[in-house]
């Protein structure tokens, strides 16, 4: 991270005074013992306590905070629930953390028009929770959904296991109330389907907290399907499993999820939760939705395709209990890998047709770098999650792991994919942006930030290579 600005550090006392003037006393955290709680997000390899942290309770308070920081030229790092795997909420020593955790109210639910309006500190799962009694749900389901906040979902354009059918956050976001860095408040979109004018909503979603602080969001809600059922397929090679995914998609079925696990992950989860998975090279979990008859119709077709690929085993769920067991290993996969060692989770996306090749190359690179990799990911949309195992206590291991990770991401771009499918760039992949984008492509993005945040104070050291933003940040 860039060297903290001494000029900003020196005015901490005045800044805290001014912030206390607009917020309740317990909403301004400046004691170094307490600011440490905000020193990192879920990318725990990097830590730095902020100058101070604020926890506003309303859009007005957020506006007041940003206006002060704008006046004082102090960088601000917005924070949802701090579950970013990319360092999106990592502070710098000269920044104010603006946490939206206290803003978690449901403001409006409208079933006739199928939307919910919430404050963005609300957790993803509790948005669905608010409409569950009427059998509705909010579709994007990142695996951190119990903890992660809608604010962070919007910042990173989060996906999840079910986005093959329902889309990611940007496809389910209808409107926002956003506070600009200068403290002005804008309303974009709303309960109507298409916002007018330029698609600013699309631009803001996924902008990693660099364009404004979204305090309220109007989200599309959907009626729950009548039912859902998974089927488990085991294969003796990754290539065959990858081909099976492609064939299912080509056949005209659109499962709600197609999840992939390879041998290292299968073994780790078996040792951890004992879901009863077969010992095989790769495994697919395919889930379809609808009434019983509709599910049968789709599964019949899917199983027919799977059989053509000589599966080691096909296991169709016949009860809720069996469904839960099929999902158990997948849902415990990250935890299971974490028991073996520390791991770094990547997030590149590739064209589905390249799955077999990329999986083979990752296997070869694993041997070259001498670090074990497990693959567990959303195969239907090509969003891979290679988990590279390393030992944080072994000097040099993290560096090798990062180098290996960068090589995998370069491979993803090489085959026509991208660096990140749903986690965001943050600090983690900042310096790889040049691999995917030419200078002129990045410059176009920087110019967008110039419009929203001319002083470059909002989360300024993220997303783009530091060299590319140096002049703008100073």
């Amino acid at each position, binding site marked *: 991270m860039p060297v903290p600005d001494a000029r900003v550090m020196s005015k901490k006392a005045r800044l805290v005074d001014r912030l206390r003037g607009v917020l309740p006393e317990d909403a301004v955290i400046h004691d170094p013992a307490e600011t440490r709680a905000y020193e990192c997000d879920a990318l725990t390899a990097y830590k730095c306590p902020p100058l101070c942290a604020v926890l506003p309770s309303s859009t007005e308070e957020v506006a007041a905070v940003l206006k002060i920081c704008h006046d004082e030229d102090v960088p601000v790092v917005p924070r949802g629930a701090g579950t970013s795997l990319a360092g999106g909420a990592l502070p710098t020593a000269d920044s104010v953390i603006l946490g939206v955790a206290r803003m978690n109210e449901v403001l409006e639910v409208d079933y*006739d*028009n199928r939307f919910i309006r919430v404050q963005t500190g609300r957790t993803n799962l509790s948005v669905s929770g608010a409409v569950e009694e009427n*059998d509705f749900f909010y579709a994007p389901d990142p695996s951190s959904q119990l903890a992660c906040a809608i604010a962070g979902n919007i910042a990173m*354009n989060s*996906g999840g296991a079910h*986005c093959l059918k329902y*889309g*990611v956050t*940007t*496809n389910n976001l209808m409107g926002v109330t956003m506070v*600009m860095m200068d403290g*002005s408040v804008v*309303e*974009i979109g*709303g*309960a*109507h*389907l*298409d916002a*007018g004018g*330029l*698609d*600013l909503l*699309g*631009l803001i979603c*996924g*902008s990693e907290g660099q364009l404004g602080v979204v305090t309220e969001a109007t989200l599309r809600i959907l009626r729950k399907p*009548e039912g859902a059922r998974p089927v488990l397929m085991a294969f003796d090679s990754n290539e065959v499993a990858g081909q099976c995914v*492609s064939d299912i*998609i*080509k056949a*005209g079925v659109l499962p709600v999820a197609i999840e992939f696990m390879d041998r290292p992950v299968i073994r780790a989860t078996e040792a951890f939760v004992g879901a009863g998975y077969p010992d095989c090279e790769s495994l697919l979990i395919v889930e379809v939705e*609808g*009434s019983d*008859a*509709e599910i049968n119709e*789709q599964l019949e077709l899917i199983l027919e395709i799977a059989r053509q690929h000589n599966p080691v085993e096909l296991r169709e769920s016949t009860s809720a209990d069996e469904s839960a067991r099929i999902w158990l290993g997948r849902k415990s996969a990250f935890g299971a890998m974490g028991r073996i060692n520390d791991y770094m989770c990547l997030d590149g*996306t*590739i*064209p*589905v*047709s390249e799955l077999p090749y990329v999986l083979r190359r990752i296997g070869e690179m694993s041997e070259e770098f001498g670090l074990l990799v497990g693959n567990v990911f959303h195969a239907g*949309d*090509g*969003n891979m999650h290679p988990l590279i195992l390393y030992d944080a206590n072994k000097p040099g291991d993290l560096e090798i792991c990062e180098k290996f990770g960068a090589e995998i991401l370069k491979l993803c771009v090489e085959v026509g*994919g*991208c660096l*990140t*499918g*749903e986690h965001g*760039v943050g600090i983690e992949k900042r310096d790889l942006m040049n691999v*995917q*984008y030419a200078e*002129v492509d990045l410059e*176009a*993005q920087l*110019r*967008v930030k110039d*419009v929203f945040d001319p002083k470059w104070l909002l989360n300024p050291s993220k997303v*783009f290579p530091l060299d590319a933003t140096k002049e703008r940040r100073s």
Partner: protein
Amino acid sequence: MRRPETETELADLVASADAPLQICGGGTRGVVAEPNISLAGLTGIERYEPGALTLVAKAGTPLAEVEAALDAEGQRLPFEPMDHRGLLGTTGTPTIGGVVAANVSGPRRIQAGACRDSLIGVRFVDGRGDVIKNGGRVMKNVTGYDLVKLMAGSFGTLGVLTEVSFKLLPAPEARAVVLVNGLDDSQAISALARAVGSSFEVSGAAHVPVGVDGHPVTMFRVEGFAQSVAYRAGQLAELLKDYGEALIETDPEKTAAGWKWVRDVEAFHGLPGDVWRVSVKPSDGPRVAAAVGAERVVYDWAGGLVWLLVDEGRDIRPDLQGIAGHATLVRAAASTRSQIAMFQPEPEPLARISAGLRTQFDPRGILNPGLMR
């Protein structure tokens, strides 16, 4: 009219332009009155991977060519773009770039999203003449800012599209339409809300107060595998029985024609008057029609998209004050256009942000300068 045939030629043309560029694709959507650059020379599907559900095409590729290629593999563009020619009396060939520039989405928008939701990558020439790419050809991508969505619906004001990439959907095996006749507008919107709020995956929900036979008709569409379609159509008919007898139509040609009729607003074809397109929260649809007192109305998107046929030269925006949403003047005489803005003026500070983006992407103000202001 200049008609560049390569991206480089276009970039040179923009870089060296010393007068405003009025850009069009096929010129069928009535957006640019007197175009001087056509993208119709930049054609061709560059990559189509049915197994990955993705397609990449040059911006000037005829929409029909894209649709034919997808049809051959049993796939389609999810968002069902409308054809404006019948409504506007235009001729020419709609292009895929024009669909994107105008973010054209049809009835399936309520289920599958708008054009911008299926768009996953763009290349474009900005107002400096620089060729810029954003997104790519994968379904999930959060690498940097999403200029892909920004370009969709920017009507050529931020850049000239040269290449567009989409995610696709399988075309369904079967389709059924459930019809309820004789409902008034508010009953119909209530019926539409009940249907789209069900678990039966309705992919079209429209109400036309003056239908083909002069009577109100409310339409619901389900698509998918044959057994599933039959099941859901039956369930919908049951769900809607409070509103009257529901008829189920499954004839492929009749159901296709019926939704094309809604999609292309055929109920207005050949009738005089200005055409407005209003986007509101679905339950506000009837309020819009009542406030305007339109000659004819077509409700799509469960009521959230209101097509209005009104007297020529009349600005309806003052009548819609207090109803959240926006109104676009889609068809009008040149004399009306000079008086009434095509697009709803934006409030501050949104207008300031939009103007700022235009200045950044087009510092000389030469790209479709009259539009979206």
